């Protein structure tokens, strides 16, 4: 039976929000087609016959009286092979296809399939007839890109006995590849699935994260680590490097699949990602980074309602790859734009505003989004694990973290990387303020570091942190009395802290080598710096003049450690360490002689 689709007509248009009459029977969050141009919209409020609809495209020229048709389906994404390497807009229309249809500028009413219907994929079955299958059990595999094996799964809400499956061969995504008998019904399955974006894909059980997500960024991995399946927020005023930071995380973190959502940000930044990622090589696999990446771009000048959809689209794709057993990382730049989109729509609905005009449900929406992250035991009979880590930028107005979006985000996320405009002004990048930032995963990940990298990791890290804390206290005094008034011991301490700040925390995203620092190299760098700190204290105790200590040659070598390549650092670091020991030894002996 084909359900007769609901048809109403427009009665009011106000920017991206319209009202339509004659919509009784339509469901909340159902997708509708608006006007003669079939613009895509979503129902966000129902009142008797009137439905309020947010439209995902520009509403210029729309007239009251034009038709509105309900599709009777919630906003969904298409899932299947072909997602990776693609770039989508907020409602999963591929931008290259839009380009083919309307040229350099995005026009309205474009309809485009998210996944190519005609492309053939090599399918290799891994289940056989008679197998009892549950949701998320794997039917077969497709080599989607050279590094990602795409598992074709039974949709989460289906279980039964496999009664037929195709042989190894090339199939289009809509071809039937398997049939499952479930409660006397036969369900035909293809490689293409759909899933509503506002609904989290189910898992069996959520775990606490325990493994670190290695990002190759020293200040992150060593000082404020994020775990696989964890959540992190990057708030910062403009020009503090949020986007560069997120790009760095997308490039170098050791997730197997990366979803990058550009939500209400600059067009050129997405172009940059598109241009640069294919050229960069993943340090773990040596393959192009683009092969593990899906981009979602809803730039600031694209329709505001689709901004909200873009992060949900992103997180649903992330969950899909998680269900295959992968570690997925999602970057959202920026969640403030998402909140602003909510505020704009809420304003048009004339809802009672909460703080600073944001809707009262801001906190719960943000929480809902971040809660879709996590490490989990997956559905299916194999008890596999997968994870989604979420990192969101926050753009607080005036760089003031007390505003509602930053505050509500901080209540949810476990890692806080506070970007600081003072640091950015003096070109200290990444401009993560070490005194304000925190990570609640430190205990969870320290056993991994201890086991896999170096025994003293937590000690080194905590000592360095204490040193920086001490430095900030001393700086207060220096401001009043000048550095010369400090005792030599404390001046040496300031020197050590300066080294950690300038040569460890700072890391150049644009330097070929320094852009990625392996975990072992991070550990060794910190260890040598800690040794430097100990040695110069020892020198001070032996009455060496502080000026002589500061001017040692090794200091310069240590400063350039970050740029020593990941292949040869072990040997070169050893030389640096030896030289440092000898040099300090030398100046101590000199003093003892006289």
């Amino acid at each position, binding site marked *: 039976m084909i359900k007769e689709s609901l048809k109403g007509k427009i009665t009011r248009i106000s920017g991206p929000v319209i009202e339509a009459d004659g919509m009784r029977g339509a469901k909340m969050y159902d997708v509708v087609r608006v006007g003669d141009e079939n613009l895509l919209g979503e129902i966000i409020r129902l009142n008797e016959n009137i439905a309020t609809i947010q439209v995902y495209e*520009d509403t210029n020229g729309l007239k009251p009286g034009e038709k509105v048709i309900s599709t009777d389906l919630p906003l969904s994404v298409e899932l299947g092979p072909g997602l990776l390497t693609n770039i989508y807009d907020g409602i999963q229309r591929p931008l*290259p296809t839009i*380009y083919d249809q309307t040229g350099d500028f995005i026009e309205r009413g474009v309809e485009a399939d998210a996944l190519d219907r005609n492309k053939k994929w090599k399918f290799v079955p891994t289940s056989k007839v008679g197998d009892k299958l549950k949701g998320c059990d794997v039917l077969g595999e497709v080599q989607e890109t050279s590094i990602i094996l795409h598992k074709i799964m039974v949709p989460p809400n289906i279980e039964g006995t496999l009664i037929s499956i195709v042989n190894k061969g090339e199939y289009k995504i809509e071809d039937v590849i398997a049939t499952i008998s479930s409660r006397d019904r036969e369900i035909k399955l293809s490689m293409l699935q759909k899933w509503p974006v506002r609904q989290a894909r189910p898992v069996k059980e959520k775990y606490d994260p325990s493994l670190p997500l290695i990002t190759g960024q020293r200040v992150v991995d060593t000082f404020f680590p994020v775990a696989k399946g964890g959540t992190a927020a990057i708030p910062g005023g403009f*020009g503090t490097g949020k986007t560069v930071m997120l790009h760095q995380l997308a490039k170098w973190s050791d997730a197997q699949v990366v979803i990058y959502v550009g939500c209400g940000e600059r067009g050129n930044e997405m*172009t940059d990602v598109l241009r640069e990622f294919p050229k960069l090589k993943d340090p773990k696999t040596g393959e192009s980074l683009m092969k593990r990446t899906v981009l979602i771009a809803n730039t600031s000048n694209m329709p505001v309602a689709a901004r909200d959809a873009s992060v949900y689209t992103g997180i649903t794709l992330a969950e899909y790859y998680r269900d295959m057993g992968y570690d997925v990382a999602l970057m959202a730049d920026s969640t403030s734009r998402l909140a602003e989109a909510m505020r*704009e729509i809420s304003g048009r609905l004339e809802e009672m505003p909460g703080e*600073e005009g944001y809707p009262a449900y801001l906190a719960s929406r943000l929480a809902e989004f971040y809660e879709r992250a996590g490490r989990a035991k997956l559905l299916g009979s194999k008890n596999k694990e997968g994870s989604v880590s979420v990192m969101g930028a926050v753009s607080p107005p*005036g760089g003031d973290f007390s505003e509602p979006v930053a505050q509500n985000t901080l209540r949810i996320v476990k890692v806080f990387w506070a970007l600081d405009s003072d640091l950015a002004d003096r070109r200290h990048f990444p401009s993560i303020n070490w005194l304000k930032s925190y990570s609640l995963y430190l205990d969870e990940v320290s056993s991994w570091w201890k086991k896999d990298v170096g025994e003293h990791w937590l000690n080194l890290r905590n000592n360095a942190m204490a040193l920086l804390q001490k430095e900030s206290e001393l700086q207060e005094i220096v*401001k009043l009395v000048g550095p010369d008034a400090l005792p030599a011991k404390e001046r040496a301490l300031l020197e050590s802290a300066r080294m950690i700040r300038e040569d460890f925390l700072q890391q150049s995203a644009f330097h070929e080598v320094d852009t990625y620092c392996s975990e072992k190299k991070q550990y060794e760098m910190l260890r040598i710096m800690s040794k430097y700190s100990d040695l110069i204290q020892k020198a001070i105790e032996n009455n060496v003049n502080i000026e002589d200590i500061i001017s040692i040659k090794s200091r310069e070598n240590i400063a350039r450690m970050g740029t020593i390549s990941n292949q040869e650092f072990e040997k070169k670091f050893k030389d640096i360490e030896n030289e440092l020991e000898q040099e300090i030894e030398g100046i101590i002996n000199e003093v003892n002689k006289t």
Partner: protein
Amino acid sequence: MSNKEIEYTTVSEVAGPLMIVKGIKDVAYNEVVRIKTSTGEERTGQVLEAFMNKVIVQVFEGTKGLDTKKTSARFIGETMKLGVSKDMLGRVFDGTGNPIDNAPPIIPEDRRDINGNPINPYSREYPREFIQTGISTIDGLNTLVRGQKLPIFSGSGLPHNNLAAQIARQAKVLGQKEKFAVVFCAMGITFEEANLFIKDFENTGALERTTMFLNLADDPTIERIILPRMALTCAEYFAFELGMQVLVILTDLTNYAEALREIAAAREEVPGRRGYPGYMYTDLATIYERAGRIKGKKGSITQIPMLTMPDDDITHPIPDLTGYITEGQIVLERGLHKKGIYPPIAVLPCLSRLMDRGIGKDKTREDHAGVSNQLYAAYAEGCDLRDLVAIVGEDALSDRDRKFLKFSEEFEKKFVSQDEHEDRSIEKTLEIGWELFSILPKSELKKIDENYIKKYLPKNE
């Protein structure tokens, strides 16, 4: 009878810049309205909100003199369009797109919706051709590239107009003869300020490659909402249709934002920060994001928006939201201006996000990135020391610190400061940088590759 010919005299309410017309049918959202007052004066408006049988119209030339009895409204059946043509170069237009230079109207080659469409991020070309502005603080430290949007954050009474005129006068892409076409869009600035630009364009012969859109301080406020969109529609035509390199100067965005707030207030919308509407970010983005380059197209749009920060406050919503959209910012500072330094560019809060890709070997010079980083770091340190000196006096400083202090003084005098008509080449800018480095101990030049230090650092001894 088509809707276009009906004169509705059913105006039911006039409030602030808004007018409500009832009993209409078939009117589209954002459609243009021609309004005739009881005295026969013509005005233009645009539909802000459309219902089945009434519309809310914003009136561009103001609502003074409108009544609810005789005023008539005619809906022209399309959204706001601008007729574009290459003959627009050398011409001056008002806030509704009509020529005001006593020359005949232009014959449009195309009519385009002034709201434009967003550029598909997939078809953008990443901007990376260095534009030499001849100004050291921009070229050397915050390089402008073709297709970038780089605003100037200023304050009232600072010489931002002179700076913008200087950029328009001197901007060029090295190795290319073609000059920039300039689209100049004035929103609510005074006649005097506008005249500064006009005279300057005249004197340098740039007028014939300039198109001006003027809405002066005494012109209707609401026109300022559509003016930048017209200017950018014209610029898009020049750049992507005619293949020109276009420099768009928008001044003053603060007046634009005020107009936006006025309408929002009249509509009784829920206000965001400081009374500005919650959608101001999106609205500003639809202006700024129209800068850029497109794959396979010769032309480009480079934007220099200018805004005066109320009370020099960079956290005010107007500069704040702008900074989140644009690709960096040039910030002017009153302190430097008072010291007599022109251009009074406060180097530390300035930024050009696209700089890294536009400089270096074959573009500017191999040592450019290093010099820039080192200048920044050293100047920042010098500025910190100034605060310290204020408390403990210069005598308490170490020898090293004194050198940094001297560096920062010299930096402002020699590098930042230059004449309004001085067009410094990038080589000259970098040379000054190296001269300044010779003040510092060599071991402090940590941000520059050693090879470049050997090659470029002046050898005094």
